[in-house]
């Protein structure tokens, strides 16, 4: 374990996981907002919006994340000139956030939509009967109940998202998997310990995350 006693190496390790953390938080927030919007579109009475939501889910759910991240870099940035920050790392970070968010939004959308199906139709009828508009019915009555029904699956999606953010390393961000690769390259005699530390860090953070979502799901479940 002397690899990590070197402050330079420790710095690589910590910076890598900080990127992962930032990508997860920003990507997760983006995916949640986008996913809820997409789910709202998919249940809306407007055919164009429904079509848009369906197309989004079909395109991004069935495309490898690596390709999407590559597209964000080579397409959005290199070709179309979309620059999101002057700092190269920060630019790659935001491109990664976009890629991860649009990809994960497709899964969030489908989870929320299955949650909407758990809400009895009578709830929407009652809301309409007191004069709520479609949007009010959705945001005040349906989505809060749908969201609580799918906290556990949303937790799984967040965990998957966290691990998926390592793909942003492919466009040059020194997140944890790139950090691991660098440390392994420089310390060929310590491959297994380095690998175990990186993998272990993910597991140590994500296992409690899973339990926390399970606990939340129970606590916030809507009693019927």
């Amino acid at each position, binding site marked *: 374990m002397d690899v990590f006693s070197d402050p330079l190496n420790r710095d690589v390790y910590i910076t890598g996981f900080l990127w992962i953390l930032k990508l997860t938080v920003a990507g997760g927030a983006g995916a949640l907002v986008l996913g809820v919007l997409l789910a709202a579109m998919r249940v809306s009475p407007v055919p164009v919006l429904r079509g848009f939501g369906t197309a989004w889910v079909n395109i991004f759910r069935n495309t490898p994340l690596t390709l999407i991240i590559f597209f964000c870099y080579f397409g959005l940035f290199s070709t179309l000139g979309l620059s999101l920050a002057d700092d190269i790392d920060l630019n790659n970070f935001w491109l990664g956030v976009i890629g991860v968010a649009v990809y994960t939004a497709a899964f969030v959308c489908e989870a929320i939509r299955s949650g909407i199906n758990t809400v*009895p139709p*009578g*709830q929407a*009828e*009652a*809301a*309409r*009967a*007191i*004069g*709520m*508009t479609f949007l*009010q019915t959705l945001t*005040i*009555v349906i989505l*809060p*109940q749908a969201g*609580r029904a799918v906290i556990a699956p949303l937790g799984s999606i967040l965990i998957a998202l966290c691990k998926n953010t390592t793909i942003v390393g492919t466009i040059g961000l020194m997140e944890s998997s790139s950090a691991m690769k660098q440390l392994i390259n420089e310390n060929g005699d310590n491959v297994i310990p380095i690998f175990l530390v990186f993998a272990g860090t993910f597991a140590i953070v994500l296992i409690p995350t899973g339990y926390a979502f399970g606990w939340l799901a129970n606590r916030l479940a*809507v*009693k*019927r």
Partner: protein
Amino acid sequence: MSDEALIVLDKVNKWFGPLHVLNDVSLTVAKGEVVVVIGPSGSGKSTLCRSINRLEPINDGTITFDGQALPAEGRPLARLRSEVGMVFQSFNLFAHKTILQNVMLGPLKVRKEKPAVVRDRAMSLLDRVGIGNQAEKYPAQLSGGQQQRVAIARALAMQPKAMLFDEPTSALDPEMVGEVLEVMTSLAKEGMTMVVVTHEMGFARHAANRVVFMADGQLVESAPPAEFFANPKSDRAKDFLSKILTH
């Protein structure tokens, strides 16, 4: 009860696929009138009730409420619905909101009234239906009868011009039917315009101004309760009454 018509259905038709659930139904409900709709299962009485606030769109004919044709959709329809209270067979209280929030939600979000005013009105309505002390509980913590009384309070909180009841006691345990009917009877006595789909013949007898009998999507008979129960004119109604009143 006045002579002024509040709800007018004119030659209303509705099909569910090949099934003709409403067949040329015409019905006028006056302000303050209590109309009880009875009939065998599948006769279209629930559909009739639900078509009045367009929870069930119709295929043909016209429905007017308070002098205006029912809007097809959007905000005008939402506004109309806010003026027509509806009570469902399965209560449909918002499961994630407390009893008090359930009653306050409509006036707050739909009418944008002041919270303090709404809270006072909601509490007095809950007291009136006898659930004031359960205001902070969630629907699942209440009995069916209590939930249905909250549902009535929720509809009344919008200060509706009319109330629709779609089999309000059919999902209740027998010992809870009375408490709900009591609330409905007192509403009727106060002059609320009501359309009630029910199997409670007792309620029809003592609270209704008029009983409407439906069968196979048609409005077969319409008469004051005393007359209808003592002397039904159609064979279909005679047959129906003989089956339910002999027990």
